[in-house]
């Protein structure tokens, strides 16, 4: 335990923001990691270094700094391939984030593969990013959207998936590997093996899983995988879409423009090789390069160490929250089945009010619908409070959270 504390102290030193105070003297306690994580100095410096030393556009120029930039940019692809166990780095497309990745699939794959009366299956605990693009698509195509519901433990009722598959017409099953509200870890292997029997494509929203647990795409065998750098120590504005080459080859271009073409003539055009066909225009070069450093940082710590640390913190927090009257927790109490996320409500205090009160003590938690209104409807609450951990969080921070919750109880005369 001692060693663990020491090494966390050591890690915390890499995150400049953790030293900052809000309201003059309250040291920041950042518990909104499911929304976006903080960045280690190494990542900040990588971006800095790019702009100071080799900023230039990529792919298209022959001079030295352009070569350096191109090499660094392409190197991120290889890093990610290794990190997620993807065989071919050229199957990785850089996008702005998970949202753009899923929309890219909806446009470039969906518009050619979803027809009238086809069915897309999603789940009740999806983020809006994995619902709205499909709503738009099924509306355009007169297709159908179906939801896998959750049970009282916040787990998916996979029997419903069986029904949908058996009924037929299912073309895509799309789900998050970890719920951003409940923390539930989805049994991806089970879902995908079911889908494979019916030859149904699968998309994994890895926004929450990739940062917090080992993801092995080659093992999982899905058809699409999306995640965001900013949720895994990396900069804002970058994410990836992965799809195997044979799937990608049958996708039509998304954005048209520079770099995604092979030859442009006045009236016809040929497309560039993969993955460039899907990377039109100047990409977010600096931040793609910063992403690479973020992955190095995670690798240095070890993704399993991160997972264990979060499980530990979640168990600790649950035991503390258990002692406070009137706290209702949503999702699975078993931290082995859940990421480092806890959603809860505290008596009749609205989550927004609670977040504002905690903020006074420097504690940043998320309140609201967490871009998961379908889930809120299911839970029959307008909003929840959510705390979510990362490698730099400590038990001491949870203790301070508890003190602050007690203050809120006094203010609201609970």
């Amino acid at each position: 335990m001692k060693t663990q504390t020491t090494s966390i102290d050591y890690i915390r030193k890499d995150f400049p923001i953790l030293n900052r105070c809000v309201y003059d003297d309250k040291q920041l306690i950042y518990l909104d990691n499911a929304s976006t994580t903080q960045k280690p100095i190494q990542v900040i410096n990588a971006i800095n270094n790019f702009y100071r030393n080799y900023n230039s556009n990529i792919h298209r120029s022959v001079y030295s700094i352009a070569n350096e930039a191109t090499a660094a940019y392409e190197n991120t692809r290889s890093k990610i391939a290794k990190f997620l166990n993807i065989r071919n780095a050229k199957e990785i497309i850089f996008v702005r984030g998970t949202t753009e990745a899923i929309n890219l699939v909806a446009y470039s794959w969906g518009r050619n593969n979803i027809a009238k009366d086809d069915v897309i299956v999603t789940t009740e605990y999806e983020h809006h990013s994995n619902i709205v693009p499909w709503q738009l698509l099924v509306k355009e195509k007169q297709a159908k959207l179906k939801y896998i519901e959750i049970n009282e433990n916040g787990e998916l009722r996979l029997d419903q998936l069986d029904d949908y598959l058996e009924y037929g017409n299912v073309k895509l099953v799309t789900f998050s590997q970890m719920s951003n509200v409940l923390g539930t870890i989805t049994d991806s292997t089970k879902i995908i093996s079911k889908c494979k029997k019916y030859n149904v494509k699968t998309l994994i929203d890895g926004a929450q899983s990739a940062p917090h647990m080992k993801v092995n795409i080659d093992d999982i065998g899905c058809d699409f995988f999306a995640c965001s750098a900013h949720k895994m120590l990396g900069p804002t504005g970058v994410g990836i879409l992965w799809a195997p080459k044979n799937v990608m080859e049958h996708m039509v271009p998304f954005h048209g423009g520079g770099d995604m073409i092979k030859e442009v003539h006045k009236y016809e055009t040929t497309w560039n090789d993969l993955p460039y066909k899907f990377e039109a225009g100047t990409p977010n070069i600096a931040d793609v390069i910063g992403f690479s450093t973020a992955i190095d940082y995670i690798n240095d710590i070890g993704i399993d160490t991160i997972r264990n640390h979060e499980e530990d913190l979640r168990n600790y927090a649950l035991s503390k929250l258990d002692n406070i009257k009137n706290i209702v927790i949503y999702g699975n109490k078993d931290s082995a089945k859940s990421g480092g996320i806890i959603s809860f409500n505290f008596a009749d205090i609205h989550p927004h009010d609670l977040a504002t009160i905690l903020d006074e003590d420097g504690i940043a938690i998320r309140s609201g619908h967490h871009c998961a209104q379908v889930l809120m409807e299911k839970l029959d609450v307008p909003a929840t409070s959510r705390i979510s951990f990362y490698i730099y969080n400590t038990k001491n921070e949870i203790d301070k959270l508890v003190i602050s919750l007690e203050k809120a109880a006094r203010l609201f005369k609970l």
Partner: protein
Amino acid sequence: MSNSDIYHEMIIDYSRNPINFGTIVKPDIFMHDSNPLCGDSIDLYMNVDDDVHSISEIKFNGKGCAICIACTSVLTEITKGKKIDDVIKINKTDILSELGLQKLNPVRIKCALLSLKILKFSIYSYLSDKIKKIDDTRKTELFKLKDDATNLY
């Protein structure tokens, strides 16, 4: 502004016991809106006394945080019985100062002013529908009202 200042007695009372909470069946004016970023969601109902051009009855329904519910309560209290010409002049300071919320931060201000936004928009569309022949001064007034609503936060 320190937050314990925000969560004073009055706010918490209003939020637990909102004023004019409920619905009106067949209201003259109805509008629903929500705060996309936090999920506060309000229905506003009003009846108009055509003789004196005033709001004879006002009710609201919905879900929201203490600030949203308290501010909506205050707004309905201020509005009730007022002439429409005066209602459209209600501004954000009227609401915020009543509850000591002048220094609310930009994200929370949306909670406080959601109902005022709904009020302004709903009266705008009520008037636009109602007044068949709108003369030019009236038109400018109406546009101003819409602008007010749009730019509230």
